[in-house]
């Protein structure tokens, strides 16, 4: 894997596929902005990883795991909606992260820099995306049923709370991965935009989830290529490529009034 562009492309596309697929369920769960806010929670983790000279993914994932456990526990014990809790964690973490991150690395942490990744990052991406696909396929029925009616899911014997926790952990995993590509500020778009575009096109769950995944991969690949050839920063280009795909899907039959 000596070609840096190929490495970036493979890693970016793998992350795009996973983010699109998981994002499809997040959009249905009305958690679109949770991914966005959670990505900011990763900032203090990235900062600590940079200070300790370890892979930023590990720091980001550790910070996100702590946040997810905190949010999930508070959700069970208080009546506050996850939106509010994520909002609280998000702002506190952002403040902490901004204080902790060394200034030269701040821009990289905020916007991501896929040019800096190594083969280990591709390996981590393949493993994490594989886990995401595996878990989602295994618990697919429970996920879908708990989205359409948690009462119906519980009455059917599905452990809705555990499923929700599992889902939040997958979100943490994918968000931590995506930070390499899009950074803490733009990561949310990697999960939201492909799913929103797929929703404009698909008429059933199967085509919706796979279309979101493929569009996520296409946006990541196209963004990285455009950034490489026109010398732009890859993160914003990936987001813009996703945006163009979304705009094109607006002309589909599903969205006509």
């Amino acid at each position: 894997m000596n070609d840096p562009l190929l490495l970036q492309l493979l890693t970016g596309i793998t992350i795009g596929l996973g983010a699109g697929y998981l994002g499809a369920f997040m959009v249905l769960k009305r958690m679109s902005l949770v991914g966005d806010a959670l990505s900011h929670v990763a900032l203090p983790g990235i900062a600590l990883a940079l200070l300790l000279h370890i892979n930023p993914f590990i720091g980001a994932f550790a910070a996100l795991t702590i946040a997810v456990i905190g949010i999930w526990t508070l959700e069970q014990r208080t009546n506050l909606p996850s939106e509010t809790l994520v909002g609280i964690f998000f702002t506190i973490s952002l403040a902490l992260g901004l204080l902790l991150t060394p200034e030269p690395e701040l821009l990289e942490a905020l916007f991501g820099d896929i040019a800096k990744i190594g083969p280990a990052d591709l390996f981590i991406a393949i493993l994490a995306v594989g886990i995401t696909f595996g878990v989602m396929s295994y618990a697919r029925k429970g996920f879908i049923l708990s989205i359409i009616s948690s009462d119906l899911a519980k009455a059917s014997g599905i452990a809705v709370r555990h499923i929700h926790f599992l889902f939040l952990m997958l979100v943490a995993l994918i968000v931590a991965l995506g930070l390499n590509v899009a950074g803490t500020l733009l990561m949310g778009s990697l999960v939201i935009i492909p799913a929103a575009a797929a929703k404009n096109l698909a008429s059933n769950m199967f085509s919706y989830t796979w279309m979101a995944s493929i569009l996520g991969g296409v946006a990541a690949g196209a963004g990285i290529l455009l950034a490489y050839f026109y010398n732009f920063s890859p993160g914003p280009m990936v987001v813009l490529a996703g945006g163009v795909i979304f705009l094109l899907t607006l002309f589909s039959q599903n969205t006509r009034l």
Partner: protein
Amino acid sequence: MAVNHLSVRFERDVLKDVSFRVNRGDVLAIVGPNGSGKSVLLRALLGLVPHEGDVEWSGNPKIGYVPQKLAIEHTFPLSVREFMQLKEPSHEKIIELLRSVGLGDHDSYHLHHHILNQRLGLLSGGQFQRVMVAWSLADHPDILLYDEPTSGVDVGGEETIYTLLDKMRRQHNLTLILVSHDLNIVYKYANTVMCLNQSMICYGVPQEVLDPAALTKLYGGQTSFYQHHHE
């Protein structure tokens, strides 16, 4: 099933000291104004909300449940086929279930293109209720809890969904507990009625307990009821 002194409290009392029994093959209709705790009672029976008091089931019956609504809007990308597959993997059995609830009256082209491949959120109110009944019957429940939607099903549609539930009850030897807003339905299909407004106001055979005094207490004001007969 025996329910003893069931109470549910969220921020205020939602259900207070409700006790009743349901025997195998019974049709119990629960009536009451909006916010009287009807849906909460069904959810408490299923163990979905914290409650005081006992809910005792004899044996270990399988319980089917049709909630009042699902969290789906018309763009929700879930087809009827995929919804049914959440419970029943066999295509043939899905077709059989949908036909049994009256959704396959037309040719199989209609069933495949306008029902099976249709998004759940795009069905008409009546079709949606039928799909929900088919879904709840897929794993052969002994008892079905049916929470009637407050809107979206026209009067004609409501009538036929109850005819269907009654037919299913006979065919599958079901016990039915249903929340209803229409007293005509109660007279026609239920052998027991419970009037509920946080606490139990009346309970018994509809023709005996649904008197003007009970209805006034239940709905307030000058409520009266004209029972018309369906042929």
